[in-house]
Each structure stands twice: as C-alpha cells, then as structure tokens.
C-alpha cells in the first residue's frame, strides 16, 4: 500500500465518478440510471477508504458503512418506485416519464 501514491486511487475514483455522471446523462433506462448512481456512490467510497487508510484512521471506513446502508435503502425504494411507475406507464424510459413536467 505504501508503495502506491495516493493520487492513483483518487484519479481512479474521479474517473469512475465521471463515468457515472456520463452514464446518468446518456442512458435512458431508469434502472441503468440507478446503477450509474451506485457507481458514483462507490467511487466516493473509494476516496473515503483511501484517505482512511493513508491516515490510519478508521472513521472514514465507518462513514463508508453508512454510505452503503443509505445506498441499499435508496436502491430498494427507488426500484419500488420504478416498479410502480412501470405498472402505470408500461415503460422505464425516463424521457417518457415526464408527469412532473409542467
């Protein structure tokens, strides 16, 4: 671990976050958009674990634990909402789910 510069991990994390942003903007399938959000949460987790490890402090990993809890909660509720929408509109295309537009 000590032989690898910390910047490597941070660059990888930044790259994965950017890919997640691109995925949210490009993809039209609501479930894949959710998966891209999970990707972004994971890249943030990687940053937290990197700093926690290089500082020798476990609080960052405690925070990762909470992030995982919230991600699980978010996935469950989000997928339930997608199922409810699919039941009504028969689609998961986020371009057609525009009932909140005025």
């Amino acid at each position, binding site marked *: *671990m*000590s*032989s*690898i510069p*910390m*910047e*490597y*991990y*941070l*660059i*990888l994390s*930044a*790259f*994965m*976050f*950017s*890919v*997640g*942003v*691109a*995925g949210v*903007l*490009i993809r*039209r*399938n609501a*479930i*894949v958009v959710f*998966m891209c959000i*999970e*990707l972004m949460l*994971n890249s943030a*987790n990687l940053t937290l*674990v990197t700093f926690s*490890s*290089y*500082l*020798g*402090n*476990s*609080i960052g*990993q*405690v925070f*990762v*634990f*909470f992030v995982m*809890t*919230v*991600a*699980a*909660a978010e996935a*469950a*509720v989000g*997928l*339930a*909402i*997608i*199922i409810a929408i699919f*039941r*009504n509109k028969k689609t*998961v295309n986020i371009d057609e789910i525009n009932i909140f537009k005025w």
Partner: protein
Amino acid sequence: MNIQLILFIVLASIAAVSSVVMITRKHAVISAVFLVLNFFALAGLYLLLNAQFIAVVQIIVYAGAIMVLFLFVLMLLNTETEHKLFIDKRAIKFFSILVSAFVFVQITYLIFWGHPSRSLTPDEAASVKAGTIQAIGQQLYTNYIIPFEVAGFLLLATTIGALVLAKKKFE
C-alpha cells in the same frame, strides 16, 4: 515494480474498463453484470488498502444484495426494446461526455493542485489496524452509536416503504 503496484494496475484497469463498458452496452442485464465486475475489482482495491471489513461488506452488500435486487427488477420488468431506449441523439451524447470530462478535470485539478493530499506519509501498521473489524466496530458502537441506530431505523422505514410502493393496489 512490486507486486502491490501490479495488483493495483490490474484491479484499477478492470474497474475503469468495466465502468465504461457498463454505460455503453445497450442491454441492461449486461450493464448490471459489468457493474458486479466493477464491484469485485473495487473489493480487491479495498483489500489492497488494508480495509478488510469494507472489502467483505462490499461483496456481500453490493455484489450480493443490491445487484441481485437490480437483476430481479430487470427480469421482472422484462425490459422492452433496449435499442429504442438507448439514446440516438448525437448532440446530447456529446454534451454529456463534455460535462463528465469537465467534472473529471475539476476533480483532477483538486487532487493535484489542492493542498491536503500531498503531505500524507502512509503508516502501514496504523492502516492495517484501522481496517480491522475491531477498530470499526469500536467506533460504530461508541462514538457513532446514534447514527448506527438511525441507520437501522432507516432500513426499517425503507422495507415498509418499498412494500407499500410495490403493492398491487397503489393509490
């Protein structure tokens, strides 16, 4: 070139390539499978960072629970014609890649020309100690006991909320 750097390069390239493949495949199930691969590579990176507990939790919770949930919903919804869902407008695609490149450049700028990340001198022993389940559990049950309880309550609320939302008769 030592074994740690080689492991890092292999795992990091798996993570990077699988994330790119994930957002470019037209089929949602293939995207999900590549996301699982990405999670496994990340778990390996956590092990490389001496974070054993987080690595195990990553595999159990993310690759095990969350992705199974995603795959279940994908199978359940019988994701119609994926080709129509995948965006064809070139302008929007170009614009989104531009936005994400901007985000990447911004974060990279912060990493290399922001101050704090430079001066850290890693301490292997402290890092190994910080990643054990003992250290994390000690923090979790003393200083962070209230967030821990709130997280449990959040999961309970989520279970009920998901049940109510996915019920047959939804008013």
